[in-house]
């Protein structure tokens, strides 16, 4: 039970008045000499019990009368699901507009049904309610009912995936600071792949559409292999995901080059040869035959087409030389002196710490002479690479510190314990450790080949990294990047920080006017599997959840705060008690 005017409950102290009067009247009364006490004793012996019952009954009636009046003044409200009115409440409406909501079922887009239900729920809100809207972007937005209803009607299917467990936890946290009784209403197609465990401290209601979702197939991955591609073209692997058993046609197109097509079913991985293209960045797109969910029928990738580097790896040591030999045998390198690993080359240089510590000074002077604002310093402590985008967690046992001789520390490509470990200044790259196992375990890991490939073909030639992400996923931006561009849109970013792409597509990482990397953003493949979770799965994951059909969901909003006004009932009770008191007192007095 709740109260509109809880301060009025202070009046309950008045209920003590009859009791106090009763106690006061029980004080030692005056003594009266009265010879006929024997008659009084006889009379009281006979009637004492009856009178005591009368006294206590009247006391109880009077006390209850005051309590009823005070409660009526306080505006008592009682929880009664189904009634139109409700006490001031806090509601977080989670609207699942993830990519799967764009699926069309029975001629209607799933999201439209969800939006209709959300609008109906918000229509039941009162000005005293606190309201939040949480969509696939994961940001709780607070507003009044009118504002949120407008926002809801403008919601479109998002390319983002919404983890329902995280969304529910976020909603619960939003309500944790709210004094009003809170609840979460989740409107979703409840994809099984979107579920996650959650412990919710507030009542949770899930409104879900009934009926089977459409069968769907989507492109789960588009692998373009090592880059850059040579001008001779390359090969791509396409994998399908979903729950459709129907064979679909895949079309792969690189820029304006003629497309390549193939047939595949869900679970298949199809490899296609892509025709040669001119050097430069190219966007590769794979499309699938249209079905009930269009958002996952297209996937893109960025392809760098360029001649392979002509490199000299001998100065880099035997591990580097062995890696270069393997790359050369795969057509990823060519012998030459354009890029030198372990010394100064004709066009690009990758400088490693000298074996002999006495040679560090001469090397630093050469770097200074070439205008490189970096130098090798004293040995630094061991650590693990924290530049995941490039190296992952590479262990470094021995290194020399890389010290900037200019202002700032621009050009850091990788770091160890936040100390620069791989830096670039123009065509010169400095690596803090030699590529030998006693310096770092990188040469004896599986990623060494890829690292050397990137080092020679991309980093030394000015390109940086190729990153993959899904909309909404935070991406660690390389230190050198200062902006992200997609088409005409350009977003400033801070190197080393995280960037969250909102839309699918190919985005380029820029450092000034130079392209230093590419970020490919595609739909999360889990969105392609539309199979819903069962009610049992929901109840196992979310204790106490109430699951209703989507059509009934609006009526369930504010159900936990739904109340009936008991003021009239208490007033009637007070009236009844008053009449009883007067009637009984008069009757007994006459009797």
């Amino acid at each position, binding site marked *: 039970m709740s109260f509109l005017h809880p301060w009025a409950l202070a009046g309950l102290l008045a209920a003590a008045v009859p009791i106090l009067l009763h106690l006061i009247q029980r004080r030692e*009364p*005056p*003594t*009266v000499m009265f010879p006929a*006490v*024997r008659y*009084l004793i006889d009379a009281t012996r*006979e009637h004492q019990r009856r009178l005591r019952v009368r006294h206590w009954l009247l006391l109880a009636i009077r006390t209850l009368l005051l309590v009823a009046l005070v409660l009526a003044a306080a505006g008592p409200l009682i929880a009664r699901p189904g009634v139109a009115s409700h006490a001031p409440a806090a509601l977080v409406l989670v609207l699942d507009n993830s990519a799967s909501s764009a699926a069309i079922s029975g001629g209607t887009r799933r999201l439209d049904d969800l939006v209709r239900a959300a609008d109906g729920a918000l229509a039941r809100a009162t000005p005293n309610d606190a309201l939040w809207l949480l969509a696939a972007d994961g940001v709780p937005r607070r507003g009044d009912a009118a504002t949120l209803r407008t926002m809801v009607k403008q919601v479109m299917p998002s390319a983002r995936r919404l983890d329902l467990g995280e969304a529910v936890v976020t909603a619960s946290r939003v309500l944790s600071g709210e004094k009003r009784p809170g609840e979460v209403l989740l409107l979703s197609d409840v994809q099984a792949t979107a579920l996650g465990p959650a412990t919710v401290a507030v009542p949770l209601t899930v409104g879900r559409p009934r009926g089977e979702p459409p069968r769907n197939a989507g492109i789960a991955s588009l692998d373009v292999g090592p880059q850059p591609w040579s001008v001779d073209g390359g090969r791509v692997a396409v994998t399908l995901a979903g729950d459709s058993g129907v064979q679909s046609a895949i079309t792969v197109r690189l820029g304006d080059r003629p497309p390549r097509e193939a047939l595949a079913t869900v679970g298949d991985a199809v490899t296609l040869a892509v025709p040669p293209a001119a050097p430069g960045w190219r966007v590769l797109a794979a499309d699938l035959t249209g079905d009930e969910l269009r958002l996952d029928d297209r996937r893109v990738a960025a392809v760098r087409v360029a001649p392979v580097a002509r490199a000299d790896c001998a100065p880099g040591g035997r591990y580097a030389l062995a890696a270069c030999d393997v790359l050369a045998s795969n057509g990823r390198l060519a012998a030459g002196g354009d890029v030198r690993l372990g010394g100064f080359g004709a066009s690009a240089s990758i400088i490693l710490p000298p074996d002999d510590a006495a040679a560090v000074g001469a090397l630093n002077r050469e770097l200074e002479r070439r205008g490189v604002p970096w130098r090798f310093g004293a040995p630094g402590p061991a650590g693990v690479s924290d530049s995941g985008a490039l190296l992952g967690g590479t262990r470094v046992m021995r290194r020399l510190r890389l010290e900037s001789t200019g202002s700032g520390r621009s050009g850091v490509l990788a770091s160890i314990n936040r100390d620069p470990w791989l830096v670039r200044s123009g065509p010169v790259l400095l690596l803090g450790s030699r590529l030998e196992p006693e310096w770092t375990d990188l040469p004896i890991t599986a990623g060494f080949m890829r690292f050397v490939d990137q080092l020679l073909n991309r980093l030394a030639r000015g390109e940086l990294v190729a990153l993959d992400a899904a909309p909404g996923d935070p991406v660690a931006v390389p230190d050198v990047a200062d902006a992200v561009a997609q088409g005409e849109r350009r977003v400033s970013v801070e190197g080393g920080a995280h960037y969250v792409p909102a839309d699918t597509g190919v985005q380029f990482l820029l450092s000034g006017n130079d392209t230093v990397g590419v970020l490919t953003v595609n739909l999360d493949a889990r969105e392609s599997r539309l199979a819903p979770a069962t009610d049992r799965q929901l109840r196992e994951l979310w204790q106490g959840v109430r699951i209703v059909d989507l059509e009934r969901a609006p009526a369930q909003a504010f159900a936990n705060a739904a109340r009936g006004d008991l003021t009239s009932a208490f007033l009637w009770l007070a009236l009844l008690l008053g009449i009883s008191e007067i009637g009984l007192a008069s009757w007994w007095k006459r009797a």
Partner: protein
Amino acid sequence: MLRTDVTQGRARLDLLDPVDVARLGGLEVTTEGVVEGFLTGLHRSPRRGFSVEFAEHRMYQPGDELRYVDWKMLARSDRLYVKQFEEETNLRAMVVCDASRSMAWSGAPEQALTKLEYAQRLIAALTLVLLRQRDATGLIVFDEAVRSVTPPRARLGQWRQIVEKLSGLEAGAGTAAEPALRRVVNQLRRRGLVVFVSDLLLERDLAMTALRFLRHRGHQVIVLHLMDPAEVALSGPAEARFEDPETGRAVVIRPRDWASAYDETVRGAVSDWRAACRRSGIGYHRIVTDTPFGQTLRTVLSPRGGA
């Protein structure tokens, strides 16, 4: 004004409020006034038939006084008869007065006599009436014990002696009626009248046993049950501790709540007394102490006043 009316014979004290009567003077004076008024109100003087006059003849027996020989009968019938006079059949009455502590109580001292004060005046008036009828009248006063015994006499000074006893009366502590009633037997060797004046706040069984004993001895017994108006209708503060001055027993009640039950109980007690007395041929009168003395006397002395 009232005193003037009394002295000028315009007011009848027997019809006045007992408090007003008490204010007029001492016990002796006011009682005479009450009795005079009472007798004046009777259409037929009670003296008739009570005077010392001839009653019957009986045969002379040796030892009889010669002055009572009826010489006329001797002349007519040549037999010796002696005259027997009414005086020899006159009533012998004993008034038994309860002077316990409960009798010395008035619910409104300014407005009503205590039961004992009322009893004093009533007994004084009653004995005066009886003595004027040449009835030998005595008085026994008791509280927790027999306090005084005035044997029944018909002589002129008897009333003053009774009044003297009554005037000096002070309330005692407890109540023990049975010994006092049994003392009556010693004082009334012939059948007579016993008037028991009490508030009856005593052990009823013991008292009734004694009263029945007197009745069985042939006495006419009248019980005058004195009650204060405040004992008839319960009143008092909102809540009070009512304490018996004799026994010290107490009860805390709200008079307003208990008035009805108390009234019912008192009625029951009176009814029980009346029924018990009727069963034993004993006259019973409940007298509230605000009743004018004349009215009480009329009730007691009426032909149906006894049993």
